[in-house]
């Protein structure tokens, strides 16, 4: 459970770091390029989850050129004799989950950035703030609801993922999804399997309740200010 939590949190964070610049570029691109760029980001999302995970597995497998390159770098940097590999361990699970869930994060961020009133950014830059300061003190606060939404719709499926840890994880990468699969499909322990699935449902509700509480508080605050 704790292990699933860490993996899912780390996945969400990495997705956010990669997705924000992507969403920014797509949202600020010339209007004629925007639909094409957006389609490019969404299209992998429409291919089967199993297909994508399998494709990633063959590209990152131990005999693939990419893995051999990483092995060379790893050995020369750390000086160690053994290379843990890119997949069949926790790293593999995280790469896989980021790969699968990236579009989930890009979409809400793109929507928010596209609607964002650019005069705020211009004002901030005109008044002498640097690009970084504008980013952290203007752009991020203004798109915070979308950041939260993106994190939620990335975190929930990553937390309950089944296919990715099964195909890309090691034998000890037992996420809650694999645990449920084990209990239901192999151990025939349905009560435990159901309890674990319900834990996922409770977690989902808790997160959604938290989000609506936060957004209500935000709305009330802006009302007070106005």
């Amino acid at each position, binding site marked *: 459970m704790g292990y699933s939590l860490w993996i899912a949190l780390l996945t969400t964070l990495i997705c956010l770091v*990669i*997705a924000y*610049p*992507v969403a*920014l*570029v*797509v949202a*600020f*691109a*010339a209007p004629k*390029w925007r*639909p094409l*760029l957006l*389609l*490019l*980001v*969404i*299209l*992998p999302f*429409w*291919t*089967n*989850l*199993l*297909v*994508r995970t*399998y*494709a*990633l597995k*063959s*590209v990152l*497998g131990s*005999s693939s050129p990419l893995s051999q390159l990483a092995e060379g770098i790893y050995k020369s940097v750390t000086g160690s004799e053994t290379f843990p590999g890119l997949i069949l361990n926790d790293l593999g699970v995280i790469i896989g989950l980021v*790969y699968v869930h*990236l579009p989930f994060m890009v979409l809400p961020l793109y929507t928010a950035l596209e609607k964002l009133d650019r005069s705020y*950014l*211009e004002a901030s*830059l005109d008044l002498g703030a640097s*690009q970084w300061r504008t980013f952290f003190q203007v752009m991020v606060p203004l798109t915070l609801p979308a950041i939260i939404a993106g994190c939620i719709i990335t975190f*929930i*499926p990553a*937390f*309950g993922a*089944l*296919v990715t840890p*099964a*195909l890309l994880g090691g034998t000890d990468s037992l996420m809650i*999804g694999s645990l*449920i*699969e084990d209990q*239901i*499909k192999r151990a025939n322990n*349905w009560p435990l*399997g*159901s309890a674990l*699935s319900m834990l*996922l*449902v409770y977690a*989902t509700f808790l997160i*959604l309740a938290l989000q609506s509480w936060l957004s209500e508080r935000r709305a009330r605050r802006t009302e007070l200010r106005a």
Partner: protein
Amino acid sequence: MSTPAGPLDYTRRWSLRLTVAAALLFLYVPLLVMMAFSFNDSTRIIRWEGFSTRWYESVWQNTALIEAFTNSMVIAFSATLLATAIGTGLAICLWRFRFPGKTLVEAVNGLPIVIPEISLGVAMMIFFKQINWPSDLAWPLNLLPIIIAHVAFAFPFVTLVVRARLTGFDRSLEEAAFDLGAGMGLFLRDILLPYLKPALIAGALLAFTLSLDDFVITYFVSEVGSTTLPVKIYSQLRFKVQPDINAAFTVLIVLTASIAIAAAFILNTMQKKNKS
């Protein structure tokens, strides 16, 4: 490109461009490599040894895969039909009528969209076992539990799409129809459904891809004789990696991607019409 980049021209910053290029490479390289290697004339997965379509032939001759593919198609078509009907009906009810518990129905409708797939799968499986659903029915009746499960998670998406379209509906058309003596049936057939057509098509395509692509829920509900293509491939993947999987997956990608592009295109033109 002769003018210098303005402070807000993020698209023209090289650091950001590189990030986007890297992200797109990350998303596409694995899929493209897999598609390329589906034409590889070698039993080894990773070495390129010339062009061949032998793996497509081998998929074609693999009766277990073809059987699973047929199951997938039967399930996807039936589930799409039912999910579109139920989803549209619900959307119209939620739009047209006020009734006690409406907010509850709306909230419940959103549930399958947010609840983790694996929990839905476990719930469906236990439901069918608890009501003692007969597991020895002949084909295609043995696919019914999967069809029901797919309808259950796909129709809320149809409802979403149809409701989005309904918000743009001009209510005076409805009043005019009733003033001119049309009944509810005539109004639905001649006014509302033609107006909803793009949403119906988009919703149906969405339901179709969702059903065709679903692995997790089907994995829990399916029985020995009722496996779908993704479930079949998953069970084979766990034992060993076979090159013909590349070919089977490439077929699946092309199929779902073309359906998805069609759906996106229809939704896009719908939004443009709504705006104008």
